[in-house]
């Protein structure tokens, strides 16, 4: 991975200095040894702090919504999972493709404080669905053998009451910090329904367990058919709630019922077949 990381950083700097891109979107070191924070580099001096290593878990694609509106091109270093998220944003016209130079960066799995990130255990592939240039090697292209839906299946096996207690218990930890929403690339509304006093459902701190359920059900539903399973929601949650379970449940159901969608194409929930099964 060393060589891939070095090559990525070198290439990013090269493109910046050549003037092909105006700014570089990458990571910088955080306070802790395992922490990497998304960072925008606009000068040569700042660019010295650009880092790409096995702790660069954060998904940078969402930043491009705002960055692609600025003058000049932005270079984004995207891992395969990040590139999938960007694909969604491009399909939904949120990011101007012309304004982004996508440097695909090979990845052998990202780590956090507690080791390999959950999302990397069930990595869904090392192909870049969209890129201008990709830098990886054989090591990076290996895909671990994880069962993405193992946790979902385990919960499906539980009884209704057990499931209810599980989610009630997990969601009761929610402090409505909105980190999951803020970091999710699919959750990119200019103004969220939960922040809009006219929507009828605006809320912040939950005054009743119903509101926890409502927020997460609605959020999962709004990204249903669009979520690319990048795993950032669970990673960002300060309370450690396994939010990805809801999204993966929906992905599993949609896959079974209507065919997978993450490769691109129309989201299954804005599509139909006359032969669809009944609810």
């Amino acid at each position, binding site marked *: 991975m060393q060589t891939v990381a070095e090559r990525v950083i070198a290439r990013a700097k090269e493109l910046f200095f050549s003037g092909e891109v105006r700014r570089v979107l990458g990571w910088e070191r955080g306070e802790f040894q395992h922490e990497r924070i998304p960072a925008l580099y606009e000068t040569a001096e700042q660019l010295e702090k650009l880092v790409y290593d096995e702790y660069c878990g954060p998904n940078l694609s969402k930043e491009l919504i705002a960055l692609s509106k600025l003058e000049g091109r932005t270079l984004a270093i995207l891992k395969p999972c990040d590139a999938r998220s960007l694909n969604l944003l491009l399909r939904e016209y949120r990011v101007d493709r012309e304004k982004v130079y996508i440097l695909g960066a090979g990845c052998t799995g990202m780590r956090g404080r507690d080791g390999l990130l959950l999302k990397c255990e069930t990595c869904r592939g090392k192909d870049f669905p969209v890129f201008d240039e990709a830098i990886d090697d054989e090591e990076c292209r290996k895909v671990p053998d994880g069962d993405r839906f193992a946790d979902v299946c385990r919960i499906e096996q539980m009884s209704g009451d057990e499931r209810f207690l599980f989610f009630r218990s997990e969601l009761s930890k929610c402090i409505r910090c909105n980190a999951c929403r803020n970091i999710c690339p699919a959750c990119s509304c200019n103004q969220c329904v939960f922040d809009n006093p006219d929507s*009828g459902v605006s809320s912040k701190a939950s005054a009743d367990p119903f509101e926890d359920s409502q927020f997460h059900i609605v959020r999962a539903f709004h990204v249903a058919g669009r979520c690319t399973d990048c795993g950032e929601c669970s990673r960002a949650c300060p309370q450690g709630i396994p939010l990805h379970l809801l999204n993966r449940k929906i992905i599993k159901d949609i896959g079974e019922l209507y065919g997978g969608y993450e490769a691109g194409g129309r989201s299954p929930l804005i599509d139909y077949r006359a032969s669809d099964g009944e609810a």
Partner: protein
Amino acid sequence: MQKIGVFVCWCGTNIAATVDVAAVADAMRSEPGVVYAADYQYMCSEVGQQRLIAAVREHALTGVVICACSPRMHEQTFRRAAERAGLNPYMVEIANIREQCSWIHKDKAVGTPKAIALARAAVAKVLKNAPLTAGESPVAKRALVIGGGIAGIQTALDVAEAGYEVDIVEKSPTIGGRMAQLDKTFPTLDCSACILTPKMVEAAQSPNIELLTYSEVEKVAGFVGNFTVTIRKKARYVDTNRCTGCAECVAKCPARKGKNEFNMGLDNRSAIYIPFAQAIPNVATIDASQCIKLRTGKCGICEKVCSAGAIDYNQRDEVIERRYGAIVAATGFRPISLEKFGEYAYQESPDVVTSLEFERILNAAGPTKGQLVRPSDGKHPHEIVFIQCVGSRCSEDAGKGKTYCSKICCMYTAKHAMLVREKYPDVRVRVFYIDVRTPGKNFDEFYRRAAEQYGVEYVKGMVGKVWRQNGKLMVQGSDLLNDEQLLIPADMVVLAAAIEPEPGARALATMLTASMDTNDFFSEAHPKLRPVESPTAGVFLSGACQGPKDIPETVAQAGAAAIKVVGLLSKDRLVTNPCVAHSNELLCNGCSQCEKVCPYGAITYSEREVVDRGVKDVRRLASVNEAVCRGCGACTVACPSGAMDLKGFANRQIMAEVDAICRAK
């Protein structure tokens, strides 16, 4: 400040008998926002409406709720009344306390609280209503009739007579439809061609009618008053401007293996053909699947013998696009396939025929030149058995056939039987029936004449099986009135097969967004009061495509459809539905989810400048074409941010209704 008035209708005793209307009005008086509540016996009456108007004026009401019958009955009535009172007609909501309350619940103690809950919901909704203004859309003064049988022809003639232009699109090479295939028509036994061809000629010569034969509708876009229809004019490989209909090509064509559709496949026709002698337009058509030249490049005889130089092997389909204000579906019917009715030996013996095939045999221009002979050996039959209800009136669990009565078979079988007995008195004719249904004008007399005067033997009972034996067709059936089983050695068996809509009808219905029932008949807007309109505005129904019917009924319905078309085309502008979708610019993300689910293509996107919380920004934003939007609301649910909302059924309104209903618990 909102000032809502609530009017609770007794509807005579329809509501008042099982709902305490005074109590409902009472409960409403203490609802937030309500300044006036009253009950009255007949709100929809002129007096009732006057009371409404007076109350609006006296109390300066900003919105009204009528607790009465279904909005599907009188929403329009009360909207108009509100308008007369000076109130915006969309500040009116109806609480359905009749069909969905008083008629369901017999106990006042149960019906009254429910009526109060429904009234509360309506009040909650109207408090969030905004005044809406209906838009206008233009009307293209041209009608499209799809189907060139007697139904389509009659509708077109009537529309043309009223002074409007109309196109008939017909998928076969000629107009005329099923009626052209008939020999004689009941109950008068006049020659079908003789009464049909003058109408066909009239349609061809009318300056207001354009015939687009050998053509099919490919795509329909738009809405009432403004349909844009794509029509494919299939290649005939014959220049219709030059062809004189002399039929030399037909005589000389060497390819004679194609099944003759006009004769229901009883004989063959050439690859280049004119469907029947009185075809209109009277031009030849080449069936590309049969033509040797088009398939292999060899032959070309028709081109050589054509003195008009009308053959054009290079002709291509032509696709045209036209605008219409109204569309009429007149796609007709066909007999069902009998593959599941093997018990009648239809597939085994050529002497077992359907009634339409028998009609062709009797017809002088048919495959046997009008001679009644057996298709198998050309011999004259002495014993003919007619079997009724083949595939009609089947039980739902039969797994085959249709559940409905095909309506025309009793009459046409009586006709066939009579014609046979009249021309060939030596032929014994028996009709196996379950019931004889001949209710039309002079119909019952017709059938009785067949039985009493012409000696047609009517046997009440069903036929179990038909099989071939020693050159005969053994028919085993019951004679219930004489309580015996019959075994008849017949020479021919005629099956009155059920009729069903033409197969292309369902695809057409989808294109028109017209509803169909489970039998693929077009649905009418109301089974009693609106028989020739589809629930889809601007689409009308004519003929058997709406349900089995005979020629007199078809012509009557065709005229009815025509006047509906004329009523529509005579307007210069149509009032559009104002309950349409609307996108909030400040909330729209530009993601196009809504655009993809709109069935009408009413949503488009463009870059526009907005000022969001003081900041100027150029964004990709959705906009709704209010003339095209039909107000389904699919976009509102596809929109994650809630930018897209539906006027008249807004998110806040529906949630307010939910709150009010659940509050009552």
